[in-house]
């Protein structure tokens, strides 16, 4: 939105909406970081803070909902403004889901802390760093209405998916090697899945940004790197 | 931006002693203005009352004339010596002798030519006409004796009404001592009385003030104004419609517009000269005729009617015109079905103002001979006549004392005429007025 509204308070209300989103985005980012940290450091206490902070995220989402409702009722936004308001609603929901996944990661981290450490856990920080960067970029893209950045985030999801797939295979193999690893590996698998889901929500946000800038959905089929749904690991394959 | 940090002092700029002072000043000037208006209004009302009072006090007596009750002997020997009872012959009869006989019967002691003439002078010439009218209406009166109220001369009337003084030297009186004593005797016998002056409303002009009437002037005015209305109204409205609705706006129509406005300000005497030169001398139309007066006054009223009509047409909301055109009415249908009816009250007001103006106009009529002495009620637009204001002008010019009250009475008649016209205007406006 290059120029301002004639009614300045309208601009202020929209600004408040984007500020709320930025705040929520920042919070979700730190939630993810803390959750990953809890996994890596096997720190149950850290994991507990993530769970408790999640309430704040929910509050912020409610605040965004209220603000959207308010702008819709009082300003009857159209065109770009309407798309921005609807986009904010959707981004808020995506962030909230992302925060929920972070909370799940944290919960499993406290469980993982009680089982012996597993080797593949080293992939988790890499995935976590990646998803955090994606989230950061998509939030920047939203703040700057930067379509290029949003699309780049959208494209990076493929990489994340691939990382998840390989981790999935690795964990399967691991579990086959020693059934005692199954409990820890399953938790790790879910943590990886959660991080991958956060990536999906991040791409959703990128798509929303595309819609609210361009007015049309991002049409091309999203690149899919997650092949885990089709992954089969046999004993032969393991050997090979 | 919205800076809310206005000085938080409890006294706003609109309260406090300073503000109260400002407010009081404002109210004071308002009251002063109101008083100026009331003063102006009072002055106008006072002037109006003075005018009306003068006219009323001068003219009220004109509606009553002094009459003498006499026993008249309708002597067939004098009235109808041939015994044919021929109405034409009655007219030739010596009615003066009949009236004189009645007087002499009352005052048998009066002898000699001069005293008899003076006795005779008590009665108006109009008395003879009254007697003639009685017999013409009822020939059976012949040979009978009847008590009849006979009109006195203006001199007697003036004495009786107190307009002429009794207590001045005989030489400077138009009624001498002998006549006064006769009048006193008649009065003592109850034979002298002021009776309602019907003649004033039925007769035309006369040389004798006791015999004059305004009807000739009223009819003349009516005919003249009728002519004016007939000519000026359709022409004026048509011109206004053309100028307002059809004429292109260019230099030529601007010129016409300026000229119309100027014509409205041209002195009326100029229209009289125009009428004299064009209608009388060039076209050879009859002098003193209401038709010519009507044409001249129509020319004079035309600019006023055009201006008023244009203003009225312009004041019709354009939305009405658009509504009509919008459903496919032609220009003429829009004008005649919608615009003109809505403009009608205004047009009529303008027209009646113009006519009222024309009614009071004398100058142009003087030029075309409507200042003539006309004793007959005008029969039609071609017969010689005069109009009320000219009549007033002529009477006011007459030195005889008896005309003073007649002049005022004629003015009253003119005012009533005007009042009736204005009433008609209001009535018409109410009738045509519609909300939109």
């Amino acid at each position: 939105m290059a120029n301002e509204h004639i009614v300045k308070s309208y601009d202020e209300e929209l600004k408040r909406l984007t500020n709320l989103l930025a705040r929520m985005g920042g919070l979700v980012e730190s939630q993810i970081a803390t959750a990953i940290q809890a996994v890596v450091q096997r720190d149950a206490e850290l994991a507990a803070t993530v769970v408790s902070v999640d309430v704040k995220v929910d509050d912020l989402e409610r605040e965004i909902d209220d603000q959207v409702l308010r702008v819709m009722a009082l300003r009857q936004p159209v065109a770009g403004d309407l798309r921005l308001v609807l986009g904010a609603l959707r981004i808020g929901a995506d962030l909230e889901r992302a925060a929920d996944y972070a909370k799940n990661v944290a919960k499993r981290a406290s469980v993982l802390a009680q089982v012996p450490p597993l080797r593949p856990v080293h992939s988790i920080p890499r995935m976590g760093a990646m998803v955090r960067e994606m989230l950061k970029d998509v939030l920047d893209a939203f703040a700057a209405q930067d379509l290029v950045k949003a699309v780049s985030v959208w494209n990076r999801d493929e990489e994340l998916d691939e990382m998840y797939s390989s981790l999935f295979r690795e964990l399967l193999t691991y579990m086959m090697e020693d059934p005692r690893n199954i409990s820890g590996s399953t938790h790790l698998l879910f943590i990886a899945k959660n991080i991958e889901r956060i990536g999906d929500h991040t791409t959703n946000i990128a798509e929303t940004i595309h819609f609210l800038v361009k007015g049309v959905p991002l049409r091309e089929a999203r690149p899919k790197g997650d092949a885990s749904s089709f992954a089969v690991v046999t004993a032969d394959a393991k050997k090979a | 931006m919205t800076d809310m940090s206005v000085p938080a002092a409890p006294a706003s700029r609109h309260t406090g002693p300073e503000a109260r002072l400002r407010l009081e000043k404002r109210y004071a000037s308002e009251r002063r203005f109101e008083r100026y208006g009331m003063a102006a209004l009072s002055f106008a009302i006072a002037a109006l009352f003075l005018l009306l009072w003068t006219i009323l006090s001068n003219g009220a007596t004109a509606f009553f004339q002094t009459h003498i009750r006499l026993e008249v002997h309708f002597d067939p020997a004098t009235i109808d010596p041939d015994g044919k009872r021929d109405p034409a012959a009655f007219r030739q009869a010596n009615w003066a002798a009949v009236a004189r006989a009645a007087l002499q019967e009352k005052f048998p002691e009066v002898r000699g030519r001069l005293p008899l003439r003076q006795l005779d002078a008590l009665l108006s010439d109009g008395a003879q006409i009254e007697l003639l009218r009685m017999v013409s209406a009822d020939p059976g009166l012949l040979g009978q004796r009847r008590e009849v109220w006979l009109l006195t001369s203006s001199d007697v009337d003036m004495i009786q009404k107190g307009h002429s003084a009794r207590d001045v030297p005989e030489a400077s009186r138009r009624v001498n001592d002998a006549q006064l004593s006769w009048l006193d005797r008649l009065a003592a016998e109850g034979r002298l009385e002021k009776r309602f002056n019907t003649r004033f409303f039925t007769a035309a002009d006369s040389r004798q003030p006791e015999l004059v009437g305004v009807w000739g002037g009223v009819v003349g005015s009516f005919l003249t104004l009728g002519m004016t209305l007939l000519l000026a109204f359709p022409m004026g409205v048509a011109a206004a419609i053309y100028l307002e609705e059809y004429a292109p706006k260019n230099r030529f129509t601007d010129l016409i517009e300026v000229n119309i406005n100027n014509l409205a300000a041209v002195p009326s005497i100029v229209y009289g000269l125009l009428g004299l030169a064009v209608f009388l001398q060039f076209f050879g139309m009859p002098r003193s005729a209401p038709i010519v007066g009507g044409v001249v006054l129509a020319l004079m009223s035309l600019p006023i009617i055009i201006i008023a009509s244009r203003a009225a047409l312009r004041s019709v909301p354009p939305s009405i015109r658009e509504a009509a055109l919008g459903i496919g009415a032609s220009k003429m249908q829009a004008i005649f079905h919608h615009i003109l009816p809505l403009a009608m009250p205004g047009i009529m007001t303008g027209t009646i103002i113009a006519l009222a103006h024309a009614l009071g106009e004398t100058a142009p009529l003087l030029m075309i001979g409507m200042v003539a002495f006309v004793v007959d009620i005008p029969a039609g637009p071609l017969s010689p006549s005069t109009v009320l204001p000219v009549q007033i002008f002529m009477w006011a010019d007459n030195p005889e004392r008896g005309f003073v009250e007649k002049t005022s009475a004629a003015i009253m008649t003119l005012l009533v005429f005007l009042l009736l016209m204005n009433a008609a205007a209001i009535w018409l406006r109410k009738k045509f007025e519609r909300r939109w």
Partner: protein
Amino acid sequence: MDATVTTQNVSGATVPVPMPMPASKVAARGVNVHYGAKHALKSVDIDIRENQVTAFIGPSGCGKSTFLRCINRMNDTIASCRVTGDLRLDGQDIYDRSVDVVQLRARVGMVFQKANPFPKSIFENVAYGPKIHGLATKRSEFEEIVEKSLRGAGLWEEVKDRLDDPGTGLSGGQQQRLCIARAIAVSPEVILMDEPCSALDPIATAHVEELIDGLKSDYTIVIVTHNMQQAARVSQRTAFFHLGTLVEEDDTAKIFTNPRDERTQGYITGRYG
């Protein structure tokens, strides 16, 4: 002169489409309007579709009313107004010499900003159009038309017992619906509405909008409005005018969610200065 030449260039360059488009009731190609020296409308190309409501929006003085008044030649009443270009109703040039303006206005009715019933009875208001166009002769025929039109305008139930009352005695919204009844009494094909609700309260506006929505099955409606929500509510197509040009014309839903032009976006979102 220059403007006309430009027009031909513009229309020649940008509109290769042959004239009669399917279902286009009114078609404009390179329509220019001058008021004296003022170039009020610059080369407008638009197709107004049959049996749809087309809304014209835009800031004051943008030429939307001017264009509206070209369609029934109401601009003819303004001496200084000059219209050039190609404007057609059902393929026939509206400004052709052979077109009778009275007949044109019978086909293209108009409802104005201010409700302007004649200062006559409700009955006479509605019957006036059919009368001057000779659509009815007998009293019974007039009665039929009046009832049908008032029903069409959703006013019949409210006024059927007082048809002889003055039309000016109705409420604002009723007056405007009376004006619509008056317009449809002539059986037009197109109804032009010049800000018909600008003087009405929201309830009366809703009645008129509901009416417009119902009328579109029988008539082609063009409505000029300053109220963008109204354009959004009642129209299927919206055209945005700005400084005498037609900036954008598209499906209303498209205009209000994702307009193509920056100026449209700026205007409808309240950023236009």
